[in-house]
């Protein structure tokens, strides 16, 4: 494994009972690369990203983060997981904590940062996404777009080496998708390594280096972004694109 490989997934398989949700998935993401995963519903995209930081267990295969193999459980797994940021479809902010407490929770309790230092960093990041005035608010008092931007900040506060996004805009009002994508685009430009599950093909076109297309639990093809949109190799991807770009 070479040093520019940030995330490597090899032969990852997972089943729910008789249903195989991931079949022998392999993928290597370089440092600073933005990879978009797309495909029809139920194709295993979300499950794949959740396996990458080990919040979903898998039966076979291996994941490496910066060359370090992800253990299936225990303290070592938690330590490695903390280095990869994760943004969820439904934000998953902690509803009983204020925005500032949400952002500082893991830095203080996992990284053992002093509270004042964690809070200073949180405030700087909040300012970057234009939400400096919301630090005392509770999640339920914010719009979906604001919540998702704060979820991104919460992940960034851990100084992650890579970020995983699981359909970050799917639960948002159409009007709020833009503000979240803008933050993600800025992150991509800053050189963050990102794996993004999304149906936002516009984002894929402007930010992704490569596109992964999945169907029925398998990775069907991995292409450079331009090549994928110009001429996907598989019929399944062609059909998917024609449907999703037609409307």
């Amino acid at each position, binding site marked *: 494994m070479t040093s520019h490989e940030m995330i490597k997934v090899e032969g990852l398989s997972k089943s729910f009972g008789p249903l195989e949700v991931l079949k022998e998935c392999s993928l290597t993401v370089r440092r600073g690369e933005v990879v978009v995963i797309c495909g029809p519903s139920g194709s295993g995209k979300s499950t794949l990203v959740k396996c990458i930081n080990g919040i979903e267990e898998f039966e076979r295969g291996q994941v490496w983060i910066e060359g370090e193999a992800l253990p299936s459980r225990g303290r070592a797994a938690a330590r490695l997981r903390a280095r990869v940021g994760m943004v969820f479809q439904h934000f998953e902010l902690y509803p009983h904590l204020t925005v500032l407490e949400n952002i500082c929770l893991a830095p203080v309790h996992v990284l053992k940062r002093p509270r004042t230092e964690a809070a200073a960093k949180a405030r700087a990041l909040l300012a970057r996404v234009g939400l400096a005035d919301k630090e005392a608010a509770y999640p339920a008092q*914010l719009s979906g777009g604001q919540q998702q931007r704060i979820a991104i900040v919460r992940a960034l506060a851990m100084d992650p080496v890579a970020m995983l996004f699981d359909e970050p805009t799917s639960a948002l009002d159409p009007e709020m998708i833009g503000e979240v994508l803008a933050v993600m685009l800025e992150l991509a430009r800053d050189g963050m390594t990102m794996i993004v599950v999304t149906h936002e093909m516009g984002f894929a076109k402007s930010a992704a280096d490569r596109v992964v297309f999945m169907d029925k639990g398998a990775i069907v093809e991995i292409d450079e972004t331009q090549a994928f949109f110009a001429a996907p190799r598989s019929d399944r991807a062609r059909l998917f694109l024609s449907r999703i770009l037609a409307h």
Partner: protein
Amino acid sequence: MTYSWNWGVLLQEPYLQWLGWGLALTLAISLSALVIALSVGTAVGVLRSSDHAVLRAVTGAYISVFRNIPLLLQMFLWFFVVPELLPAGAGHWLKRDLPYPEIVTAIVALGLFTSSRIAVQVSAGIDAVPRGQRMAAKAAGLSQLQAYRLVLLPQALRIIIPPLTSEILTIFKNSSVALTIGVYELTTQTQQIQSITYQGFEAFTAATILYVAIAMTVTVIMRAIERRVALPGTTSGGLHVRF
């Protein structure tokens, strides 16, 4: 009915004092049992919600045993049977040397009985927290213990405040079962007054008023707690308002 009312009996010595001691003991037993019930119940409820099959089985058995045996029988078992089952030394200590054995037994029996019911509520509360919360905590690198302490329990406990309130009310009422193993709590003292003075209506009315006063106090306190921990932007402490 030729009943000669005499409300004044309640204010006479030693009956007023008996009522006072009874009330004090009822409060002491109930509150001590509540401490046991909350701590054991939370611990068992947390383990019950884990995905570890053995832990689920063991906590399930604990809940079945303590929830399905009548409280009265549990009091008798702890008081009369358990000391006989223990090694001789421990049994003797329980029967002879333990100060106020009937009070300690009542607290333990009531505490463990109630803990099984609170455990069910706590684990149901944890199950009611959206699954994504557990994932978010895990993704951030929190340990299991931290995830429960910092993320899951604060939400679960808010959800179960209403059923927990009933449970706390019940613990005060259930403390009267301690009468059967000879604890001089409120109901026992009332019965004593009745059997000595024959003023049963007055004595039991006093006990009724005191129990109702306790219940109302508990309700007011719990409502205040519920209001205090309610989250801004949600209705009645609800946690699932997302958009």
